[in-house]
């Protein structure tokens, strides 16, 4: 029997992750609810003053997105690690970085994309101006995949470690700073009627670089953890 082609293998990994996650839908909903709750807590903490909330909104939504993504990183490899699937993947004739990329894509569809879809609602909650709305959605659309990509490195490194959940935040959050700066910066720039094109191009550049390099690093980390 010939091994399936590269593309089929990646697609199978992707579809498998989606199917499993959809059967256990609480896994998908938890980060999303977390995102909603964190953003809701901010007005309660700083007061309901509309202008203050509007200036803080880009940062608050972006930080909440970072945290929600981070919370979901444990799911990326841990179940496959526990049941041995991951070792099978590592032994497969296909390049591991590509399979990791497929898994990261599935992770993004299950966490990043719902966050993007929910963000307009939160933007309304925080009185974001209409012209900022599209920018917010675009930045999240470009930025959340990078969060999943960088996060996969952290998830792979902490695989099977005690306290892995807290540890992954320590490893990954500092690496997220550029995304946060340009993501939230773009939305803030729109508040002053400024053009956010430079931010968006940079986020797109991060996405391309991340898609090319992060799977390699994550695959190397997985091989170390599986040793």
């Amino acid at each position, binding site marked *: 029997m010939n091994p399936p082609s590269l593309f089929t293998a990646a697609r199978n990994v992707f579809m498998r992750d989606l199917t499993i996650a959809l059967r256990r839908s609480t896994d998908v909903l938890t980060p999303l609810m977390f995102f909603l709750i964190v953003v809701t807590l901010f007005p309660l903490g700083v007061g309901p003053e509309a202008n203050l909330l509007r200036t803080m909104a880009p940062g608050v939504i972006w930080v909440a997105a970072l945290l929600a993504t981070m919370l979901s990183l444990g799911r990326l490899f841990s179940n496959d690690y526990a049941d041995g699937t991951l070792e099978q993947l590592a032994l497969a004739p296909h390049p591991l970085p590509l399979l990791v990329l497929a898994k990261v894509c599935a992770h993004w569809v299950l966490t990043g994309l719902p966050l993007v879809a929910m963000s307009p609602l939160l933007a309304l909650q925080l009185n974001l101006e209409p012209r900022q709305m599209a920018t917010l959605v675009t930045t999240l659309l470009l930025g959340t995949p990078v969060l999943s990509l960088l996060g996969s490195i952290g998830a792979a*490194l902490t695989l099977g470690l005690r*306290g892995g959940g807290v*540890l992954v935040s320590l490893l990954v959050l500092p690496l997220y700073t*550029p995304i946060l700066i340009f993501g939230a910066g773009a939305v803030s720039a729109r508040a002053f009627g400024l053009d956010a094109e430079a931010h968006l191009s940079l986020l797109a550049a991060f996405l391309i670089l991340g898609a090319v390099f992060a799977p390699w690093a994550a695959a190397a*980390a997985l091989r170390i953890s599986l040793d």
Partner: protein
Amino acid sequence: MLSYAAPKNFYPFAGKLIPWIGFAAVVTLAFGLYLGLFVAPADYQQGQSYRIMFIHVPSAWMSMFVYVVMAAAGAASLVWKTKLAEVLASACAPIGASFTLITLVTGSLWGKPMWGTWWAWDARLTSELILLFLYIGVMALQASIDDPRRAARAAAVLALVGVVNIPVIHFSVEWWNTLHQPASVSKLGMPSIHPSMLAPLLLMAVGFKLYFVAMVLVRMRYQILERERHTQWVAQVVESEK
């Protein structure tokens, strides 16, 4: 030359080097401190407070230099799987974190008289803080893996990812800072450098480098002993150093 890379040969060799390098570090630092604190004139703008620069700036240089050394050693350990490179990489992290901490605290102590505030979101201080987080991440990862080989290799991957990210982080923080720069805050600039200020600055930088080499060797030596504890030569070393 290559034979020094074997832990067995490296251990006594480093043991002989440490006192000399340590001595050189103490002399250089003492001379640098003397020039910096007593000989260099007060800056006409910042008065005496600029003397904090003589530790702040060299330790900021060190904080980045050590990270690069750590990442390079990590890369070497992943490519050639040499034990010595693994040990070097893991010995770098706490020393680099210490220099980063010194940079932050002295920067804050310099900022108070100059800016009137302990902490300003100055681009360089902010990237330095993120660098500290990166160091802490590497150290936490090392600490939570029991197997030293796996710990070293995982930390190496993280250090490499970090070293690629540091320029990006630095650039984005720089860019973020120019947008939000509060008007009243002027940068912690190096005063227009006079030769009498440059000499202590460079001496301190060299002294910190020597100190780093000596301390890295000390750390490497005991880590090597721990890792090779079941070998014959370690048993002999333990026997002879009673």
